[in-house]
């Protein structure tokens, strides 16, 4: 049948929004979410024997690979799902052995990581970019497996890969450029980024990510039906989506973050040499050190005199 598929989950594990979510109505605790995410992973593994998964977490200030456990790397990455790894225990007669492997580790790993967080860290935005880059590295690794020891063995076809990103916090405009770089890399690898938005904060860049990579964007209104959303919108593979469509977002906001104050702007001032974006007119580009001609500044200065003074100090 069709090619095996790889599903990479990226979980936003910032404690503050999760605490808020578990007290909102309807409540959704991290634990309940993980339980549903696991069933979702199982459903993906159930689709095909060769399917595989990986899970990455974005914690405040750092990112971690949650599954597969480090060290049980790639040569087997795909095989794991095929159930060719030697198992750790005798197994459970009531669970499909492939599922059991993923279930075991993930829950405890997440709790471990969240518990290990320190108070101070909690306000820093989650390292989504870190998790995304790791996920892309992993996917890149799957599509370019290390050369087999035995050269006569042809490399198996690389799997179709997909990223599903669960977001609970708003955009980190600090990381605008790295985040966009991730999107372009995903485009190049032909990896769609699906975004599942669990809370109500604004995420312009995630909008752009799913739009540019051709992924789905779903804002979960009824959190109690999360699993239903997951299996209806995020489970289908690229091929299947040609028949059964997945929801995309209504509007894509193409705003960007300026380089000087990291603010999200809809009208910006752009350096003609390096295309750096500034929220106010500046006399000199801070990136490429180009000095702009005074006429230009005057032209914009008429409309924003205070902007001009701001710009020179920036």
């Amino acid at each position: 049948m069709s090619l095996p598929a790889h599903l990479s989950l990226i979980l936003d594990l910032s404690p503050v929004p999760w605490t808020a979510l578990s007290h909102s109505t309807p409540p959704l605790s991290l634990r309940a979410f993980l339980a549903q995410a696991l069933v979702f992973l199982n459903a993906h593994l159930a689709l095909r024997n060769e399917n595989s998964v990986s899970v990455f977490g974005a914690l405040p200030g750092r990112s971690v690979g949650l599954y597969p456990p480090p060290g049980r790397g790639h040569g087997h990455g795909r095989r794991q799902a095929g159930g060719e790894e030697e198992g750790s225990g005798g197994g459970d007669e009531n669970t499909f052995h492939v599922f059991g492997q993923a279930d075991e580790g993930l829950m405890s790993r997440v709790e471990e990581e969240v518990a290990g967080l320190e108070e101070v860290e909690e306000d820093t935005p989650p390292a989504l970019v870190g998790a995304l880059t790791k996920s892309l590295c992993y996917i890149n690794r799957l599509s370019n497996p290390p050369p087999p020891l035995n050269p006569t063995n042809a490399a198996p076809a690389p799997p179709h890969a997909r990223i599903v990103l669960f977001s609970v916090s708003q955009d980190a405009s600090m990381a605008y450029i790295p985040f966009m770089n991730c999107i372009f890399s995903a485009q190049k690898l032909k990896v769609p980024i699906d975004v599942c938005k669990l809370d109500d904060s604004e995420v312009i860049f995630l909008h752009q990510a799913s739009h540019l990579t051709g992924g789905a964007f779903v804002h979960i209104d009824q959190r109690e039906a999360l699993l239903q959303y997951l299996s209806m919108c995020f489970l289908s593979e690229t091929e299947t989506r040609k028949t059964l469509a997945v929801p995309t977002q209504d509007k894509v906001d193409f705003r960007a973050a300026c380089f000087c104050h990291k603010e999200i702007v809809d009208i910006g001032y752009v350096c003609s040499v390096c295309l750096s974006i500034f929220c106010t007119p500046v006399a000199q580009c801070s990136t490429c050190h180009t000095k702009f001609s005074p006429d230009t500044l005057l032209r914009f200065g008429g409309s924003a005199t205070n902007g001009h003074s701001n710009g020179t100090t920036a």
Partner: protein
Amino acid sequence: MPPRRDAEFIVSDGSEPEDDDLDEDYVASRAARARKGKGKGKELAGDSRKAQDQSYAWEASYKRSWDTVQEDEAGSLQAAVQDLVARSKRRRLLGGDAPIRRTIIRHMMLLMDLSTAMLDRDMRPSRFDLTLSYAREFVGEWFDQNPLGQMGVVGMRNGVGERIGEMSGNPQEVLKCFADKTKLEPAGEPSLQNSIEMARASMSHLPTHSSREILILFGSLTTVDPGNIHDTVDACLRDQIRISIVSLSAEMKICRDMCERTGGVFGVALNEGHYKDLLFELVPPPAEKSSASHLAAKAAANESELMQMGFPTRLPSTAPPSLCVCHSRLRSEGYICPRCNSKVCDVPTDCDICGLMIVSSPHLARSYHHLFPAPAYKAIVELDGSEAPTCHGCSQPFPTAARDRNLVPEEGMSPFGRYRCPKCKHDFDAECDMFVHDVLHVCPGCG
């Protein structure tokens, strides 16, 4: 010309990775650029000496490669060959990580030789067919990397320049020029002067902050010109037009002169693959010339402008249809100008109502990795026992023992396959190192 490109796999003296046999043309053009900057005489001498020394460098490195290739225990050369490939890949990565100024808004006229010389079948299926198909690929890739650029097409046949496609920022329109092969049937003699003049004329009105480039795909060994072609080159120099030529037959003095004087690149294609390589080297935006020179920086300052741009909101195909301001057509999709809220069909464009330049921010963002490249990783040559057991990017375990003791550390290869980010101090394996610097442009540890 000796196959310098093909010698890339072969390791020469690794101590000066930039100055080896990679590309004489590059060295030469750099020399040419240096020549223009006053007070650079010393460097010029150094560069041209190197250029001379390196002419037959591939021969020397060929000999050396004999020694560097080592069989593994099983007597197989595979590991050694992979090693060489990895090394040559890495060498491409080495290079400054300081932000260089690059021209990002580019304008290019593509001059295609449509003379009878293009019917030659020394390249398969013929020079003409190959050029057409490469040109198509080139246009796609060029617009991918230069989303704000514009390109026009001029053909050279029967002694005149023929305008095939107007300057346009839409890749589809440019590709349309190559769609009908019968209209481009090669005939007669080419004229470099006529065609360059035509290209020059169509670029004369362009704003000063953008680059102007002419790329000539030249198959002929002759040109029929009505006047002195050197005057044309002078005019191009005045207009700051950069001329690059890819020749399919052989080197011509006038072609090389033209490129060197205007700061372009000249190359002669050895075979089909090399032709493509030469062509695609012209895809990434060129580094701003003479950026180091204070004088030029001042001159550049006068040309540079701050532009006001708006980032629109895109309406989906399910939105209620409304009239667009550009064609007055009723349709659902479109982009909303952030200043006046009018709807336009496509970006980038200037808003027809308020005149704001509307671009999609991802278009701009595509070029940012040139400005903020990921820091070059350092190869780890010695372990102190405290290293992470797995790659920070892909979680693949590192080999515990050094693979090849014969590796010289200067070559930028780690015997342990570990490369460390100078900023976040995390270790990455070779594959991730390549991926991070070639595609991702973000360090997974720092991000």
